[in-house]
């Protein structure tokens, strides 16, 4: 270095010493330079491991990843038929997709050359063989230390076994706001849960709303497909959590508890506001629903919203069916159930309790008095093992005991009890009786035995664990032989070892080892091996109905061969609350389709929805125009501006519909089909009294604007097209501004 700036002429010639060196940059013949082991080259994706959750596409900075349908691949629980395809014209090799992958199926290789003058070849579908079917070592790989996902669940606080052992107080305490938000933040909004949920609830949407601390939005999203969220927030079989993509490597999102948190946090009197009910036009037709379980209630709620008169008939003193008379209070407190049911009543559903169809009311009368009858009476008759001794007076059916506990009636509780059955109902009765035993005797002496061994017991694992904590003793894998009775008193249950429950074709065909005998001691036996329906109320009709095997023949809307008779709940598709709700909702849609002679029950494309929203804007404009000049100047100015805005929005929507660039996207399938009626409801012209007071008018306008806000809010999420997204975002913001203005005036 020459700081004094005295250079040399000769020194540069020293460079001649390199004249024989091999050049570092030119490689002839051409060869690929080997890369570092962590190189971020072309992707590989293990198609078997990949579940098509689309999180990679979600995090991609450049929209380089598109999820495409793979022909021949069937979607299953927890996996869609989509797989990522990558546009290498857009990819920037940042590998965020690798670090966010839920399954670790997506990785990068050390391959980096692709030469082609065909641009289409740069849009590639990576599988495990590499893009050129040439094997390259893996490059940048998923690593546990640097994975972006939160795999651990926020722990739910529960009462300890000591605290809960002798009381029917609810065990699960529920999330606090902080806990719920922390849990909601783990969600990647892949939507696999929605696909799996029988009711297709908008799970990612309500989790998102919880994360945004916008509970009314969460409630609105939940009520779209589930009118019993307090119940489902507690006792749902949460198939969604089985499908959750976070569950692939970690603990799935506690979707059920999040739903419970949202609904617990919303006061009952706000339900109406959240769901915007009153935009319903009475249609003058009526539906009778037999049974007020989840399926019946769900159908009733949606039918009522569509404008039908709904009357429900319930044989017990309170509505709720199995939710009230089957599920014990420590799992589902009656307050929570009542909160849901009261809201359904509030909507205008009439529930006639203590009314048994076939006894108090004739089924024929229902047929005569109502346009449609929906039966959803469930499974209320317990099945017996029919082993010798079951006719003894101290042998009970679980389902009968459970309903008696709910009703507050005295039941027999002995010091030593044997429960037969391995399902959730068996757990319910065992745990209820254990509580009763502890209350009465201060200790638990209860045996649960089932044909199934522990690993294939149908009850939930957590139920079995909690029952064990509470003192129940399990003897799984044993078949009942006879109830041993001496001097008219039960001594116990004689059992054989059950070698296998199912045969090779997975049919129920238990095999026993008759040398392995064990007496399970007890003075009282409870059978809980399943339930069946009692449909004697149908009378002659049961002969007229077409059957499909052992069940009634129904179409996709659960309509029987007699078109006025629909069927829902356990008697057609069980066995849990959420299936009941889903079937009830579907049957409601079918009833509406039949009574109103509708063709489209679902909207599949953006175009259908857009034309509806156009009609809605027109409608708003016209109804506002009628009242121009009738109210005080402040409101009048607002009305005039709203009319102008509506014109502007109409113009925008029309322009978009006619825009050739957007045209192809208009037929784009919505991420999920939307219930057409849901949108239909908002465009119903409401006859407004000409002498309406200012305040009432404002309230009416507010409701419409809020409805529209909700609609655009949903649409924004349903499309992936940027222009449409922008339009809906704009519409949404406009409506939000109007809403705020009206709120100020109110």
């Amino acid at each position, binding site marked *: 270095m020459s700081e004094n700036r005295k250079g040399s002429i000769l020194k540069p010639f020293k460079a001649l010493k390199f004249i024989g060196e091999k050049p570092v940059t030119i490689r002839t013949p051409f060869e690929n330079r080997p890369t570092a*082991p962590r190189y971020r080259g072309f992707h590989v994706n293990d198609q078997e491991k990949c579940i098509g959750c689309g999180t990679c596409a979600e995090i991609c*900075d450049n929209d380089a990843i598109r999820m495409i349908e793979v022909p021949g691949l069937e979607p299953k629980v927890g996996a869609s038929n989509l797989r990522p395809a990558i546009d290498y014209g857009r990819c920037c090799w940042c590998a965020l997709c690798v670090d966010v992958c839920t399954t670790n199926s997506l990785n990068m290789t050390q391959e980096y050359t692709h030469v082609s003058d065909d641009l289409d070849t740069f849009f590639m579908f990576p599988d495990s063989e590499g893009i050129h079917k040439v094997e390259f070592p893996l490059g940048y790989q998923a690593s546990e230390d640097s994975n972006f996902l939160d795999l651990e669940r926020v722990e739910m606080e529960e009462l300890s076994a000591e605290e809960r052992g002798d009381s029917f107080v609810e065990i699960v305490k529920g999330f606090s706001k902080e806990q719920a938000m922390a849990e909601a933040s783990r969600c990647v909004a892949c939507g696999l849960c929605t696909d799996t949920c029988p009711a297709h609830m908008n799970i990612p949407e309500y989790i998102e709303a919880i994360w945004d601390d916008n509970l009314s939005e969460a409630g609105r999203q939940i009520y779209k497909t589930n009118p019993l969220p307090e119940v489902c927030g507690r006792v749902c079989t949460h198939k969604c959590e089985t499908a959750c993509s976070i569950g692939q490597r970690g603990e799935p999102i506690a979707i059920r508890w999040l739903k419970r948190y949202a609904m617990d946090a919303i006061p009952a009197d706000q339900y109406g506001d959240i769901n915007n009910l009153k935009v319903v036009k009475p249609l003058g037709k009526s539906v009778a629903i037999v049974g007020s379980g989840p399926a019946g209630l769900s159908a009733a709620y949606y039918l009522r919203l569509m404008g039908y008169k709904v009357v429900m008939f319930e044989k017990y003193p309170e509505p709720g069916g199995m939710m009230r008379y089957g599920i014990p209070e420590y799992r589902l407190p009656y307050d929570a159930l009542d909160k849901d049911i009261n809201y359904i009543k509030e909507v205008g559903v009439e529930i006639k309790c203590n009314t048994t169809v076939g006894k108090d009311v004739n089924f024929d009368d229902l047929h005569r008095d109502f346009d449609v009858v929906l039966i959803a009476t469930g499974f209320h008759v317990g099945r017996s093992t029919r082993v010798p001794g079951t006719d003894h007076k101290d042998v009970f059916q679980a389902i009968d005991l459970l309903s008696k506990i709910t009703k507050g009636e005295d039941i027999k509780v002995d010091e030593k009890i044997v429960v037969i059955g391995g399902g959730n109902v068996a757990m319910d009765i065992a745990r209820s009786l254990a509580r009763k035993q502890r209350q009465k005797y201060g200790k638990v002496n209860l045996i649960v035995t089932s044909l199934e061994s522990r690993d294939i017991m149908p009850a939930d694992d957590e139920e079995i664990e909690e029952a064990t904590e509470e003192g129940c003793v399990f003897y799984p894998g044993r078949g009942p032989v006879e109830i041993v009775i001496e001097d008219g008193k039960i001594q116990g249950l004689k059992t054989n070892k059950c070698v296998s429950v199912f045969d090779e074709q997975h049919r129920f065909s238990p095999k026993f080892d008759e040398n392995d005998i064990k007496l399970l001691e007890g003075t009282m036996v409870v059978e809980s091996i399943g339930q069946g329906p009692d449909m004697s109320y149908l009378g002659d009709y049961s002969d007229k109905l077409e059957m499909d095997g052992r069940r009634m023949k129904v179409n996709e809307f659960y309509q029987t061969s007699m078109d006025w008779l629909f069927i829902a709940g356990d008697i057609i598709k069980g066995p849990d609350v959420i299936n009941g709700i889903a079937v009830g909702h579907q049957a409601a849609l079918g009833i509406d389709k039949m009574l109103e002679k509708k063709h489209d029950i679902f909207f599949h494309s953006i175009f259908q929805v857009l034309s509806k929203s156009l009609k809605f804007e027109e409608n708003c404009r016209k109804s506002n125009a009628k009242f121009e000049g009738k109210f005080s100047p402040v409101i009048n100015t607002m009305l005039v501006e709203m009319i102008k805005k509506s014109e502007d929005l109409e113009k925008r929507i029309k322009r978009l519909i006619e825009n050739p660039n957007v045209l192809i996207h208009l037929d784009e399938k919505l991420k999920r089909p939307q219930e057409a009626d849901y949108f239909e409801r908002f465009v119903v012209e409401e006859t407004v009294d000409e002498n309406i007071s200012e305040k009432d008018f404002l309230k009416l306008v507010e409701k419409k604007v809020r409805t529209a806000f909700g609609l655009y809010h949903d649409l924004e999420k349903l499309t992936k097209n940027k222009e449409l997204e922008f339009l809906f975002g704009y519409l949404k913001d406009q409506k939000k501004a109007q809403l705020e203005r009206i709120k100020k005036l109110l």
Partner: protein
Amino acid sequence: MSKIDEVRDYELFIGPNHPGIAGNYSFKMKLRGDKVLSAKTDAGYLHRGFEKLMEERLFIQNIAIVCRICVPDPDPNENNYARAVEEIAGIEVPERAHWIRTLVLELSRMASHLFSLGGHAATTGLYVLANWTIADRDRIMELFEELTGGRVYHIYQLPGGVRRDFPDGFGRRVLEVMDYIESRLPDYDDLAINNSLFIKRATGIGVITKEQAISWGVTGPNLRACGVAADVRKDDPYEVYDKLDFEIPTMTEGDSYARMIVRRKELVQSINIVRQIIDKIPSGPVWNKIPNPLKWKVPAGDAYVRTESSKGEYAYYMVSDGGRKPYRVHVRGASTTHGVHVLENLLAGSRIEDASQIMFSLDACPPEVDR
């Protein structure tokens, strides 16, 4: 002005293909014969709207964007971005990650200086040095490839730390490369820096006085070549620079050659820093987990963070409104001063054959100007 002068006056449009600068840039020059009367920079060829793009992307997605603001020296961008988010969100970074980040920053500085030394010499017609330094810079690129998976854009530092730890034996290979580059420095000296032809070409060219430098807001090696020992690493230490022993080389002449010498001396300092890091780096985790990036909201707040890049003081001002995307990110590119008005001032009165040398000696990075 005589008639002959009028005839000899002409306008020249230089660029936009890398007119002696690392990126697309151009000048409108007024010349009289060989003499530059005035020069007007014409920026914008590399304007990709980074600041605006960032407002539309999740906090995590931006780490793939920021590095593109300066191609030869991308890591100060990543570092600034990560530190700004960390400051707003109150995220702790593990000790080891601080050390790794410092290592990455220094390697990046060396790569950029090598690039600049070669380019500078090439503007005087000495292309051999450019060939050498670019080939030697490749050794550092290989280190980056090994550590981060990427050669040019590393996308490696993210809020909470860095994405991956050292691969096995990485420290040893870093030292090997340092030894190699150190051994090459005398070759560079012989070929260009002590070359009397180069000295002649570079002396007294593009002189910035100390006063001018300060009043124009010049930073980095260009300022240090004027005799001001200002360096963010010393003045406002970030990462682990306060735990390292190094000097700030300065020169007083403020001309093209002085700037070359400052960069040449900084290479030695950087080699020294890298060796200290490899020697002292503690073990431990390299990343403190951030919340699920798809849902992550950074609390409302703002932060101003700065680093010393190879070009000078490089700063980010970030505002978060509590949402999932930054509300605003402003990038203070170090080259914004010396890439625009300093350059215009220096070019006026220079000769056309020195114009590209002046540009490269300032080591301006056009994407930093355009953003």
